[in-house]
């Protein structure tokens, strides 16, 4: 849900222009994994601001709590214990929607206006238009959207589009005690990331880098990773995410081609009738 309506770049299942009279600066959330202490304040802030509460679950043996994203948990800390050349490392990644420039969810969605992308880069779900088909789940290269068991609609991080629309930063950013989370224009965030990467390089993280995957046109949630060469270490963050070829075929070329094909078949039949006429058998011609 969001407040913007003048700066829409794209709407799901809509073949005409979206209202984009106003152009806003591209924003981004930068998550510096090397600064995260795993306190989950961001998870709490997300619940508070959006006023959603997940069910109280049970301990599944790891710190991840709740164990997965859900209709009410739009961000979840993922804890990975990994061995690197620096020994045992505890990598903690705040998981949630990446707000892709080329959003697979939006591409797959069949419901007009259920998913919108603003010119500031935020990809937002408008649940009142959602029909609960789950196509967005197939479209997402990051495995983020979740169908709510409560209402059958799909939910995910909104990047606090309601707050951003009125000039505030997302709730999670406000809560972060270490400055691991920062928010601003995408350009500023890239610059900030560069400084962070330089610092990490000096501290011996040779492969530190920015995660802003080009396969989805870049994202509006970016990570600074200590081991940017191995994003998989961070709870299976995909190395080169892109919209699946199958989704591209299905919601890319197949969609218009098949529709035209069906239309042509009907027209073809009609004009065949006009040209050749019916096959008639009457008793007289028969004998």
């Amino acid at each position: 849900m969001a407040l913007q309506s003048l700066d829409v770049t794209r709407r799901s299942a809509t073949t005409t222009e979206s209202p984009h009279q106003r152009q806003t600066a591209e924003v981004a959330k930068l998550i510096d994994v090397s600064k995260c202490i795993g306190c989950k304040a961001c998870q709490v802030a997300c619940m508070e601001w959006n006023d959603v509460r997940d069910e109280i679950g049970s301990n599944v043996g790891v710190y991840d709590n709740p164990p997965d994203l859900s209709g009410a948990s739009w961000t979840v800390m993922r804890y990975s214990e990994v061995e690197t050349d620096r020994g045992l490392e505890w990598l903690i990644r705040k998981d949630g929607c990446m707000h892709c420039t080329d959003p697979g969810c939006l591409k797959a969605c069949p419901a007009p206006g259920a998913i919108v992308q603003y010119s500031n880069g935020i990809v937002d779900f408008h649940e009142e238009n959602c029909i609960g088909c789950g196509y967005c789940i197939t479209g997402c290269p990051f495995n983020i959207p979740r169908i709510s068991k409560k209402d059958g609609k799909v939910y995910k991080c909104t990047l606090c589009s309601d707050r951003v629309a009125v000039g505030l930063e997302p709730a999670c950013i406000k809560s972060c005690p270490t400055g691991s989370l920062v928010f601003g224009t995408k350009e500023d965030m890239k610059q900030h990331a560069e400084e962070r990467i330089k610092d990490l390089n000096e501290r011996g993280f040779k492969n530190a880098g920015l995660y802003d995957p080009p396969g989805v046109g870049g994202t509006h949630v970016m990570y600074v990773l200590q081991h940017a060469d191995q994003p998989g270490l961070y709870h299976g963050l995909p190395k080169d995410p892109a919209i699946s070829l199958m989704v591209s075929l299905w919601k890319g070329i197949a969609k218009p081609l098949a529709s035209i094909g069906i239309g042509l078949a009907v027209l073809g039949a009609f004009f065949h009738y006009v040209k050749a006429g019916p096959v008639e058998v009457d008793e007289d011609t028969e004998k």
Partner: protein
Amino acid sequence: MSNETNLVQRHDANVRINHWVVAIAFVLLALSGLALFHPAFFFLTNLFGGGTWSRILHPFIGVVMFVSFLGLAAKFWKDNHITDADREWQKHLREIMANKARNLPKIGKYNMGQKYVFWTMVITIPALLVSGFIIWQPYFAPAFPIGLVRFAALIHAFAAFVAILTIIVHVYAAIWTRGTFRAMTRGTVTAAWARHHHPGWYEDVSKGVK
């Protein structure tokens, strides 16, 4: 077979009812399925009470179609084996389409075109059922790996496309070939129709072979 009115029984009442259950389900499925396939067809969801209702109803109608199609397939199976006469008939397709066919081979109960429709449905309907289950939210889709769900969505769309084209041909053929429609509504065709289009079958029926 009734000699007075020169009518030949082609489909009994059970087959006709079965056929129309499949047909009604197919039309509902095509309309609700197309609605979720391309935004140009999204307005069709209004026929079903909106987008969410279309999404909810579609798979249940699909199960109805599959189950009823099983009955139809079992009934039609043995008359749809492809014969040499069918292959010969196919060579005359151009003339047949132009309404100028002469000296066609002795076709049995179904011609090659009808057999194509039958076998296409025999392949696509089970494919639609299986792929449909895999993408069925919220009951079954979460149980399958995401790669399989994506593949199933693609297969579902492709199989549906093939099936819809086939049914367009099927419906048009019934309109084009006069005297055919009553075979599925009244159950009978005229003897002249049977002699002309399905001489092999007409011979069998005349001899009392079922």
